[in-house]
């Protein structure tokens, strides 16, 4: 699980039976108490279909309960979607574009809004191959007892951070974005998590992709419910450079590391909300957004992952303020 905190953005990504949404009330309180941030601009909640929904607790027992929980905070202006095949790997999304406590809501300046431009890639992978799962198990001589998808090691001879570092190096995770500050952890008896922050770029970074970001990886390698996720908001160039891969290269690299048999890919691209951007700035943002979306649509072509994979779906959504491209692939045979 991971928490990312930027000046006006918080991302909480949690797995297992965690109570993710129950933290939202406190997040809102903290933002107000410590930072004077009283207005939520937009809120997203998404997840893939659970492997074991009966084990979930609180509002996470059912998608309708999760949406109802969010509606209780934001009102019923939000929208909830199911994307992808319902009988296989569907993906669920709820988002709210709103300003809470509107009476004190300041106007967001156009320059600030431009800086809120956001592109987020998520690759959700399951049914990892045996070779793809193997590196994420603690070596037998180091493992403590226990079952399940990973606890914080206390009996292992190798510390969790050191194990994470070894895994990251062995698999090339530390090279996905050269120069990134990587923080990874190997769990006992299995499992892996990594966060990385990517700088705004040195002199060699293409001027077309200014800005840094993060990526995060979580892996549950056990046979039968193996799963790996990769999420990233680092701006990508149209063509790979020494510092950064382009979109297709990044996806291909991630898939080659985790070797899934099934995966879904989503790319979110922010666009100007119809109610919020003056015309002068909208054209600038729209151009960047539509380019990113078009590139994603092309990148998610049937040949993205080569002849070993078949693309099952490719879907485009246009929301107010965001465009989404979704695709899922399965390995042949």
């Amino acid at each position: 699980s991971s928490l990312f905190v930027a000046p006006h953005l918080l991302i909480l990504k949690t797995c297992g039976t965690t109570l993710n949404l129950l933290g939202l009330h406190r997040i809102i309180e903290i933002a107000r108490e410590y930072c004077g941030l009283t207005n939520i601009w937009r809120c997203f909640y998404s997840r893939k279909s659970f492997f074991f929904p009966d084990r979930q607790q609180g509002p996470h027992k059912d998608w309708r309960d999760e949406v109802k929980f969010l509606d209780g905070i934001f009102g019923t202006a939000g929208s909830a979607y199911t994307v992808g095949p319902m009988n296989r790997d569907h993906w669920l999304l709820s988002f709210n574009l709103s300003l809470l406590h509107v009476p004190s809501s300041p106007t967001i300046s156009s320059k600030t809004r431009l800086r809120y431009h956001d592109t987020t890639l998520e690759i959700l992978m399951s049914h990892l191959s045996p070779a793809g799962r193997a590196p994420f198990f603690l070596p037998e001589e180091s493992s403590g007892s226990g079952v399940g998808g990973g606890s914080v090691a206390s009996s292992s001879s190798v510390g969790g951070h050191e194990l994470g570092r070894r895994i990251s190096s062995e698999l090339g995770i530390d090279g996905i974005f050269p120069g990134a500050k990587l923080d990874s952890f190997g769990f006992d008896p299995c499992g892996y998590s990594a966060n990385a922050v990517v700088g705004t770029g040195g002199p060699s970074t293409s001027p077309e992709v200014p800005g840094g970001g993060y990526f995060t990886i979580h892996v549950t390698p056990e046979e039968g419910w193996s799963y790996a996720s990769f999420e990233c908001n680092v701006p990508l160039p149209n063509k790979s450079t020494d510092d950064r891969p382009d979109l297709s290269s990044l996806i291909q690299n991630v898939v080659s590391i985790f070797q899934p048999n099934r995966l879904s890919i989503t790319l979110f691209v922010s666009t100007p909300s119809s109610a919020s951007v003056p015309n002068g700035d909208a054209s600038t943002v729209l151009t960047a957004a539509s380019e990113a979306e078009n590139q994603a649509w092309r990148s998610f072509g049937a040949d993205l992952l080569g002849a070993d994979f078949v693309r099952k779906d490719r879907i485009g959504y246009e929301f107010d303020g965001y465009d989404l491209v979704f695709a899922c692939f399965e390995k042949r045979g």
Partner: protein
Amino acid sequence: LSSPGPFEGPEKLLEVWFAPSPEELPLSQGHDAGNGAGSSSSATAATTVNGSGRSYRGPTPGGQGELKGLRRVPREVWEEMLDIVKCKVLSVVEGEEIDAYLLSE
């Protein structure tokens, strides 16, 4: 922290964007506060702090290490929120624009 039985890999992803506070907004039209996510205005060096012990750096106006917005919130406060969620902080990486907390579970 151990989880008996099958472990649910698919994550729940919550993303919350806040509008700037009144204090962060420009006093005159055309001047921007420059606090948006993705801004490169806070060029603090990346540092890693593992385990416990990340100290709270309060706002020091104009200072090199000034943290803005939500990044000013002390780690202990986030930990209290994470208790509700049932997660614990394992380590933290501080970047130029974003802090990354690696969590248990």
